[in-house]
């Protein structure tokens, strides 16, 4: 079991970790989306993933999460828990928000907390300014609020790797700042973030990967 999320005390880097990928190739429906992609990410590093539409940003994130199969190449989280897949040590925020409209905001998060075996729903709600909406049905939320609810899932359980697919879509300025703060905390804890976005994330990424060039 991982320790409860408690910024300041908790730190991931009990071991030296590194996410490595080599010679990755991805094929979707018979079309080679990208090939020969390599990346290396160390604790505390933020990687920004860019590239034109259809260059495979989402595919690469799904590949790392274990949701797609690589056509070639290897991905490894060195120093991670050998008994868990990379996906089980990562948070994945996609375009689809995995929000149930018939449940309240609080119930949505409470389910994911139980599912992830994680921590504090109130804290996660507060971090994205959703406390006021906590008893509302998620179906009444605006697009940006739904996005914040999806992002709040990041804080339910400490996972070393965050895979964010266009995390800023629909967010207002205040929410962007909150996201930046949450991401900074994750990096300070020794976490790693890969974000596919063309929007500034509130801090300079440590690494950039342009799939348009790599392909």
């Amino acid at each position, binding site marked *: 079991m991982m320790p409860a999320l408690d910024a300041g005390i908790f730190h991931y880097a009990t071991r030296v970790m590194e996410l490595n990928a080599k010679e990755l190739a991805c094929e979707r429906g018979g079309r080679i989306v990208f090939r020969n992609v390599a990346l290396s990410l160390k604790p505390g590093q933020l990687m920004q993933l860019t590239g034109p539409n259809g260059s495979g940003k989402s595919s690469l994130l799904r590949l790392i999460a274990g949701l797609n199969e690589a056509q070639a190449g290897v991905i490894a989280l060195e120093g991670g828990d050998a008994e868990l897949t990379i996906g089980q040590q990562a948070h994945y925020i*996609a375009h689809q928000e*995995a929000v149930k409209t018939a449940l309240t905001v609080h119930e949505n998060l409470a389910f994911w907390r139980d*599912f992830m075996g994680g921590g504090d729903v109130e804290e996660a709600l507060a971090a994205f300014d959703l406390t006021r909406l906590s008893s509302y049905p998620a179906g009444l939320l605006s697009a940006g609020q739904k996005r914040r609810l999806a992002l709040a899932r990041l804080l339910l359980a400490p996972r070393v790797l965050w895979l964010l697919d266009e995390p800023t879509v629909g967010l207002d300025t205040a929410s962007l700042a909150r996201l930046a703060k949450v991401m900074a905390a994750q990096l300070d804890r020794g976490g790693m973030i890969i974000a596919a976005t063309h929007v500034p994330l509130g801090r300079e990424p440590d690494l950039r990967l342009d799939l348009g060039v790599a392909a």
Partner: protein
Amino acid sequence: MKLLLALIRRDLALSLRQGGGAGTALGFFLAVVVLLPIGIGPDQALLARIAPGALWISLLLSVLLSADRIFQQDYEDGSLDIMTMGPVPFELVALAKAAAHWLSTSLPLAIAAPLLGFLVNLEPQAILPLAASMVLGSAALSLLAAVGAAVTVGLRRGGLLVSILVLPLYVPVMIFGLSASQPGAAPGLTTASLLILAAITLVSLVVSPLASAAALRSYLK
């Protein structure tokens, strides 16, 4: 374990709030059972003879009515993606979702069906064996429905396809369910049929999570 209970609880809450679960299936079941005597005519002896079969067929159809929704919504809103990244094997997630379907749809139907038997002149001594066989068999029905639902999860309007895929698998359940609940059956036949029904349910319990999880994984890729 706590995690799977949370998943079952969530699915039950969803099926209660969104409708389309137990309510719709029960309504459909009631409609079939009410229409049947009207269609067949007022021959009470004939009705009593076909009552168990009529109730079983209504049960199968009602269970199938909501079968395609077992995984569909979670697939469409991305929840299934996240569930593959949970701390438990995906097979257990598939099992929990089938269990939620059983608790929300098949089990209430299996309990209500023998009680609604009076509408088709079900003999009183057949009520108990019918209830026993339906409760046992309904678990197999939900587990098999989950496989069909997983195989068709990415298809729009996959409901009909689920029925076509799953109905053949339902045949053994119905045969032994019926032979357990036949009025005036030979002594020992009821017990033997119930045991075979239990065996079918246990096999489904093992095969269904493996098959559903494999089908869902290939869809997510």
